[in-house]
């Protein structure tokens, strides 16, 4: 990692953060490794998660840019490509389908399991949950450390798989057998990586739930928890109870690949005209049920923490309490429960009878209601506010309509009849990218801009932030809206040539070119962010402990919070999380830990 480490700010609580300071610190603390690499402090682990997951987001994004380039210019040689990805993957500058399929599968996997979830839960959750509930640390600091290292190991395994013979996994992030059973070695690496990641999530989930149940500060009753903490709690339950299904599935697929079993292989398979030499009797659909039993709850894992971040930022920057706090909490409970009951809406076209499909269509429609409630509540929260449009707020606000488009496009997919033409088309790809990219990723950006001053004591640059915001908003829509149009026209996903071979794709094929350019544009505007992030570490405007005049407990801790312990003295909580603009007060915010309303200032 180039530039000074942000952990450097933890070295001394007051001292300036510079390379020189780092050097003296190194001399002072010969066991730096133990302090900053194997620390059990939730804040250090949170930052480790943050940087690792940002790195993986960047990797996942690079793969996506290659995907977009390929779909626009399939078959056209680009010598630079050979330089980038090697002769094996793109001989003569032409990307091989083998490699294209690796890009798709690994982009999905990396974004979901190594990028967004670790950033949303591992980084934001880890750093903020103990602070927001007024705890000195997580309940199990050493498990926390283990969780990070399992995650890092999983990431290394996944990245390494690109370099094994045959390349990385290439059967989609969904890894449907029999295809995945027959795929080259990379698939085994994928399974091993997934098992490590599952382990990491399980440890994390146990830790989060225990922390939230046990370590709330005195006075921090359940309904005084910031909404963000609620989202982390539900998310942890989803991780805890849904991931084991994938764990089981990965074990079974591993057995199929390594021990020659046929859990997912029915009798009588023939590949390339040759009978497959296995016992048979397995079921290909078994995998799909196990996979989606995890993967549907997983999509709410992607979005719940994002909703939490957005709620915090909207309350803070509209200077008023969120609308319907309790209703929002109940809604995400319902969302959590229901998310275990909709998985087969990914499988309508596997041959489903009326009864089963009716059940899953009904649960799918029902689950959209709590999302509508939460989103409406967030929009309504703005009513009567005094809205500050700073960078975090811009990202948080943009989350709402973007999530709206993504969520609404889920409805035609959720009705089995309209899923017939849309299933496995780019409409699906557009649907979920609206939720995860300008949705979740925007929320995560918002979170980074918002909590950066707490972590470092410095502000990020506002101009660069706005450029980053505007650029990302425009380019993201230019990439993902055309996907919806292409999908409606019947263009499938996962096509090496972007659909060029198909007649029905012809009317919308031209869109691939602007989509590719927009992807390059999106990459370019990220430079504003990366520059801003590293520049502000050293050169950002210095701020006090509570620059946003916020009410929740993390802002009551010193900036940066104390290593091992967070607070100078554990806080006591007197009220709910969003007491902004309380009538009859001079200042417009009343922090949770301040005993007397008059002392609010």
């Amino acid at each position, binding site marked *: 990692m180039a530039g000074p480490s942000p952990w450097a700010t933890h070295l001394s609580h007051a001292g300036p953060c510079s390379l020189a300071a780092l050097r003296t610190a190194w001399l002072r603390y010969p066991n730096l490794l133990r302090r900053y690499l194997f620390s059990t402090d939730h804040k250090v682990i949170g930052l480790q998660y943050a940087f690792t997951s940002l790195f993986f987001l960047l990797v996942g994004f690079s793969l996506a840019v290659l995907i977009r380039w390929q779909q626009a210019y399939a078959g056209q040689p680009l010598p630079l490509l050979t330089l980038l990805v090697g002769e094996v993957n793109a001989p003569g500058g032409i990307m091989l*389908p*083998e490699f294209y*399929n690796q890009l798709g599968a690994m982009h999905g996997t990396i974004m979901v399991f190594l990028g967004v979830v670790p950033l949303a839960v591992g980084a934001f959750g880890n750093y903020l949950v103990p602070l927001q509930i007024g705890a000195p640390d997580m309940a199990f600091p050493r498990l926390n450390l283990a969780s990070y290292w399992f995650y890092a190991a999983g990431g290394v395994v996944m990245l390494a798989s690109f370099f094994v013979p045959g390349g990385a996994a290439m*059967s*989609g992030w969904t890894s*449907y057998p*029999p*295809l995945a059973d027959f795929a080259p070695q990379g698939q085994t690496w994928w399974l091993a990586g997934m098992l490590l990641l599952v382990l990491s999530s399980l440890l994390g989930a146990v830790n989060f739930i225990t922390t939230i149940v046990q370590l709330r500060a005195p006075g921090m009753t359940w309904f005084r928890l910031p909404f963000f903490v609620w989202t982390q709690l539900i998310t942890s339950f989803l991780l805890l109870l849904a991931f084991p299904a994938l764990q089981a599935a990965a074990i079974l697929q591993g057995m199929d690949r390594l021990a020659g079993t046929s859990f997912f*292989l*029915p*009798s009588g*398979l*023939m*590949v*390339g*005209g040759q009978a497959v030499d296995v016992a048979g009797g*397995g*079921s*290909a*659909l078994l995998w799909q049920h196990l996979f989606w039993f995890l993967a549907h709850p997983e999509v709410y894992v992607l979005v719940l923490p994002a909703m939490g971040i957005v709620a915090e930022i909207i309350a803070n920057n*509209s*200077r*008023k*309490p969120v*609308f319907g706090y309790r209703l929002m909490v109940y809604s995400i409970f319902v969302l959590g429960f229901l998310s275990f009951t909709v998985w087969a809406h990914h499988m309508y*076209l596997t*041959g489903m009878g*009326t009864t089963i*499909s*009716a059940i899953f269509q009904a649960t799918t*429609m029902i689950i959209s*209601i709590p999302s509508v409630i939460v989103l409406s509540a967030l*929009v*309504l929260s703005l*009513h*009567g506010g*005094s*809205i500050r449009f700073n960078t975090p707020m811009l990202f948080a606000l943009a989350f709402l*309509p973007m999530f709206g488009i993504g969520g*609404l496009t889920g*409805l*035609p997919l959720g*009705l*089995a*009849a309209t899923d*017939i*033409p849309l*299933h*496995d088309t780019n409409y699906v790809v557009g649907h979920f990218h609206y939720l995860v990219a300008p949705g979740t990723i925007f929320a995560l950006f918002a979170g980074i801009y918002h909590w950066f001053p707490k972590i470092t004591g410095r502000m990020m640059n506002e101009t660069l932030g706005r450029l980053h915001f505007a650029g990302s908003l425009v380019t993201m829509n230019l990439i993902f809206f055309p996907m919806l149009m292409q999908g*409606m*026209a*019947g263009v499938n996903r996962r*096509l*090496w*040539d972007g659909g060029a*071979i*198909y*007649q029905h794709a012809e009317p919308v094929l031209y869109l691939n070119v602007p989509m590719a350019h927009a992807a390059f544009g999106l990459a370019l505007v990220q430079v504003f962010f990366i520059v801003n992030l590293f520049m502000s570490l050293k050169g950002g405007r210095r701020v006090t402990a509570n620059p946003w005049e916020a009410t929740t407990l993390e802002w009551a801790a010193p900036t940066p919070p104390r290593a091992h312990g967070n607070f100078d003295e554990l806080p006591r909580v007197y009220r709910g999380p969003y007491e902004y*603009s309380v009538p009859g007060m001079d200042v*417009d915010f009343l922090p949770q830990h301040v005993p007397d309303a008059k002392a609010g200032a």
Partner: protein
Amino acid sequence: MIEWLGMPVGASAHAVEVDRLMALVHWLMLVMFVGWSTYFTYVLVRFRRGRNPRASYHGVRSRWSTWAEAGVLVSEVVLLVFFAIPFWSRQVDALPAEQGSTVVRVVAEQFAWNVHYPGPDGVFGRTSSDLVSADNPLGLDRRDPAGRDDLTLVNELNLPVGRPAIIWLSTKDVIHSFALPQMRVKQDAIPGVLQPVWFTPSETGQWEIVCAQLCGLAHFRMRGIYRIQTPDEFQAWLAEEAKYLPAY
């Protein structure tokens, strides 16, 4: 609405229903999106700091949002109960009688669609994996009396218009997905499962069979041709093809 969505032409009897539901959902989505966006824009302008320096602790008090949410729920229930579920039980779940329908087998493999007609006797000949070879991808047993008149083709499917078509779908190797966009038909071909799909073509034309499920390296070009012909053309075509049958 349906014209704006840019779907491919709908050329089967049930396409109308699918498209109607598609249009209805998209109307619902549009109304919701425009409604919320308008309100959203309004609050952003009205309650910006410059205009409203002091926030109100209580915010909105009216209950209309509850009504809006209830409205969404009701619309979804209507779409589900009156459109989506009946459609499925009528169209997807219930097969028409084999008499009066054109019955075809389609066997997917990496990366081709093998099409099998039962011939004039209406009975599919025996197939066996032992007989599978490059020029007999279906492993059809031509010595079986029922199999002598069977037609087999690769990546080519012909069907008469106006008559239900039943397609028995299966796959030899991995999962594929048999999609006829203009028929509003898509069905995964799952190994080990024999799955029927049916539809009634309502317009003649020539289009493409699409593989919709990632099935390996050449997934992107696992394409076939299908033709919806007039009954006469179809009969003529059958007769023409029968001429090339091997003699036994």
